[in-house]
Structures are given as structure tokens and as C-alpha cells.
């Protein structure tokens, strides 16, 4: 109940218990229990044997595809993007504000790296902007079977330190299913900007490095402080995520954004996933990083969307707008 207790606030927990369906619980089937246990134990004994033979094993790692449903979406990476020129203008789809629909390098093939470097060049050319609030408008969609849940979310990060979030739930036709709402965080925070669950001040974001090496160093530095148990794989993954979140949601300078795009071009596990359209029908170049697909429009240097599909469940965040505004926070309108 009080601010320093490490016990969950009973009200908060009661409220969560009220909101949530009861947990789905089951035992691992007996044969699977045995099989997994034997598997783990055999690996442990194997590890012990090899430790006896060679106390300083060199780590040997190679990539593997799991046969599980989660990874069934992974496909062998194509070597190049094939940009189909006349596919670039989705009918009736509103382009991102300020976007041009000119396809970069239209009609020819572009590698992931080329695409990201093109995005970096576009980013550098965009003017720095300013305002009282940094507003990020996203469309969040979750589809589970036939249940489709869509919400417009608007984050308003005020220079005054207050954070607002507006919500509008959409019905099956894309229209509002109820009134839009907005709330303001009760507490004023000097670190209002949240990226990958880390908080930053505006000055920190504006002062981020503007070189490729610098921005990677910054992101991996943040990653190293998330958990003492993380090894390089975890740190690498978080670093990439943070660079992407920076591009999606942060009021970074054009130079920092350019650096982040260039940095992405050199990150591990980034795979080409061809061209695709987002929920708004905007066409972009897709990257796949461990099961998540990111769609980028290099001509506007924007991250259009990120999406995952697993086990019949589809989740997508479409970045509709991100920029400074002098408007006062207000509940989000529909399309």
C-alpha cells in the first residue's frame, strides 16, 4: 500500500485479479515431462564430461531453427528486396504525414543494407522540429482467432514533464466503438520519455550520439545495465530493439536518426523480408528480426509498423504519426 513496500499493493492486485481471467494451468504431460527431463539431464552430463576433458571449453554456437510453432513464421532470407515499381501506391491509403510516395530506387533491387542506408540519408535531410508536446499516434491491433481488437493510442510527452495517454477503441468497421479517453500521469517526471521500458530526459535524447559507432555504443551501454544476468545475446537483442524504438518513437535529432538507421544496417540477425504493406496500406521494406517484422519507408525515414504472428495470434503496432506539436493533449479522434 505504501510507496516503499515490496509487497504488491493489495488494491492493485485485487483489481488485476478482477480484470484477468483465471490462470490456465496444466501439467506437462507425463511422457513429455520424462522426455524433457532426460534431455536436460543428458545435456548436463554431457557438459560435465566435456568439462572434465577440457576445462576451458571454447563456446561453440551455431544457429538453429526450432520446429515450434512460434518460429514457423521464420523463412529463409531472400538475398535482395525486389522493389516492384507500380506496387508503391496503395489505393486509398493515406500516406504518412509529409511522406512522399516516390519509391527509393524504384523498380530495381535493393539490399537490406542499401535500404537502411537510403533511410539514413533521408533522415539527415529532414528538418529538426519543435513544439510543446512530442506526440506519438499508433494503431495497435491484436487479432486472436476471430476476435479483432483495435485501438488508437496517443502518447503525449510534455516538455513540462507530464505524460498523457489517449485511447480510442475501434469497432469492426474501424469506427470508434465508444468515446475516446485521455489521462495524465499523476506524477511529473523529469524522465518522461520511455523507450524499451527505460526512461530518458528530453536533453538525453536530443544529445544522443550522431555517429553509427556512437549510437551503438550508447544503446549497448543501456542494454548492459538492464540485467546482471544478461549475456551478449541478450544485450545484442536489446540493443537492436532500443535502436528501433528510438526510430519509432523518440524525438531524436535528424543526425541521430540517421546514425540509428546506419547502425541497424550492421546489426546481427536482421533479415530481409521483402516488400509489404502495413495496416494502413502503406508500402515499405520489411525486416525480420527474430519473429518480429518491421516495415520501413526509406523515402520518409520512418518506421511504419512492427508486427508478429504466432500460433494464430497476430499483433501489430502501426506508427501513424510521431512529431512535435503545440496542440494541447486531447482525446484521439478516429481516422
Amino acid at each position, binding site marked *: 500500500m505504501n510507496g516503499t513496500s515490496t509487497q504488491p499493493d493489495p488494491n492493485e492486485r485485487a483489481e488485476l485479479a478482477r480484470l484477468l*481471467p483465471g490462470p490456465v494451468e*496444466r501439467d506437462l504431460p507425463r511422457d513429455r515431462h520424462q522426455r524433457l527431463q532426460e534431455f536436460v539431464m543428458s545435456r548436463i552430463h554431457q557438459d560435465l564430461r566435456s568439462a572434465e576433458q577440457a576445462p576451458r571449453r571454447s563456446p561453440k554456437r551455431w544457429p538453429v531453427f526450432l520446429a515450434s510453432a512460434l518460429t514457423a513464421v521464420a523463412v529463409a532470407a531472400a538475398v535482395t528486396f525486389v522493389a516492384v515499381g507500380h506496387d508503391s501506391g496503395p489505393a486509398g491509403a493515406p500516406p504518412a504525414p509529409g511522406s512522399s510516395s516516390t519509391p527509393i530506387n524504384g523498380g530495381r533491387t535493393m539490399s537490406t543494407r542499401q535500404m537502411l542506408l537510403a533511410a539514413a540519408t533521408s533522415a539527415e535531410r529532414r528538418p529538426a522540429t519543435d513544439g510543446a508536446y512530442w506526440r506519438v499516434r499508433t494503431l495497435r491491433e491484436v487479432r486472436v482467432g476471430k476476435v479483432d*481488437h483495435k485501438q488508437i493510442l496517443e502518447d503525449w510527452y510534455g516538455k513540462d514533464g507530464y505524460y498523457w495517454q489517449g485511447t480510442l477503441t475501434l469497432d469492426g468497421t474501424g469506427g470508434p466503438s465508444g468515446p475516446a479517453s485521455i489521462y495524465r500521469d499523476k506524477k511529473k517526471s523529469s524522465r518522461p520519455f520511455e523507450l524499451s521500458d527505460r526512461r530518458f530526459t528530453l536533453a538525453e535524447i536530443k544529445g544522443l550520439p550522431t555517429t553509427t559507432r556512437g549510437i551503438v555504443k550508447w544503446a549497448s551501454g543501456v542494454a548492459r545495465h538492464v540485467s546482471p544476468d544478461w549475456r551478449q*545475446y*541478450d544485450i545484442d537483442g536489446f540493443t537492436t530493439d532500443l535502436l528501433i524504438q528510438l526510430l519509432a518513437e523518440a524525438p531524436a535529432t535528424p543526425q541521430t536518426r540517421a546514425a540509428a538507421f546506419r547502425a541497424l544496417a550492421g546489426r546481427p540477425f536482421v533479415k530481409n523480408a521483402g516488400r509489404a504493406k502495413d495496416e494502413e496500406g502503406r508500402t515499405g521494406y520489411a525486416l525480420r528480426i*527474430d519473429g518480429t517484422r518491421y516495415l520501413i519507408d526509406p523515402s520518409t525515414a520512418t518506421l511504419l509498423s512492427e508486427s508478429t504472428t504466432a500460433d494464430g495470434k497476430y499483433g501489430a503496432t502501426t506508427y501513424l504519426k510521431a512529431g512535435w506539436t503545440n496542440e494541447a493533449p486531447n482525446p484521439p479522434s478516429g481516422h
Partner: protein
Amino acid sequence: MRARVNAGDPDAFRELFDEHVRSVYNHAFRLTGNWSTAEDVVSLTFLEAWRLRDRVDAGADGGSLRPWLLGIATNVSRNVRRTARRHDGALARLPKQEAAPDFADEVTTRIDDRERLALVRTAMAALRKPEREVLALCVWAGLDYAEAAEALGVPVGTVRSRLSRARRRLDKLVTAGRLRPPEGDREPHAGHGQGEGDRGTAVRSAQENTR
């Protein structure tokens, strides 16, 4: 147990598996929404536990290793393939389940299980990953804030704020009619005279500890 785990006693790991596999398996399912993936997470969690065994504080006075294991399971669930790579692709050699039976086809006779499963998925899918993780740890696995913070390697304040954000998001889902508070649905699990405030947790913890 802690000392034996720390010392790398294989039998201790066998016992650890027997004792906590149910917790890890269900926690993994809540994070990944997939029973087959949850099995992968189980294997990798115990392999990771073996790899990280020297980080177990042998001197700590008998505290359960469950928060530690659930923390590892959470990290593994974040990226199953990345962890699998670390273990030399061992998982690829593990025979897969023939066909993952759907929950509703299982031994259970509860009519509302399928519906509840869909609700859980809807709720979890609407949350961001960090919120999902603290929710699964604090509400369903019954860890307290400090244990969840330790499991995730984040400050307690972060656990608190994520939980609070999760509540706001779920509240909105309910308000929007996308998630029904499962009133009657909860009774068979919770109707044992628990106080309103903590019944969910108490019952769940009891379930978690039974295998």
C-alpha cells in the same frame, strides 16, 4: 538445495526439474501463448539454470529457487531462438510432440477452459512484453514485487510501474467490452473462502505449488 545447485550436483537439477517444471511450463505458456513453445522454454530454462548455477547464492538461507527459475524462463521466453543458439542448437535434436493437443481437447472437462484460454490470450496480447512479464510473475505465479524484480533484474519501482500500466491497459480493455471480467468463471478456482483482496493470488500460489 541452493548449495547443491551451486556446486553443480546433477541430482539437484533433477529434483529442481521435478519440483518446478509445472511453474516454469505454465509461466512460459502465459508469456508465449503456445504450449509447444512453452516446452522449448522449459528445456532451455533448465539448461540456462545449469549454465548460470554459479550465480546461485549458496549461502542464502533456504529461499526457494522458483523466482530465479521464473526469471530465467522469462528471459528465455523473450527470445527462444536466441537462447537455443547458445545451447548449440541442442533443441533441434529433441523429438517434438507429435501434435500439440489443444487445451480444450485435454483431460479437462471444464467447459469454460477454452473460453478462458481465449480471454487470457486476448489480455496478454494487448499488453507490452514488459507488462506481460510482471503480470505473469506477480499475479499468476504469485511472486511479490521484490521477487519479481530480482527475477527480471530490474528495480522494484519498475515492477510496480509496469504492473500499474498493465492494470490501466486491462481496465481499458474491459471498459471497451473486449475483455469481460470473468466473474462466475473464477468461482470454481477461487471459491474457497479466500478474502476478496488476495484470493486470486492465494489460489494460484496453491496451484503452482502442487504438482
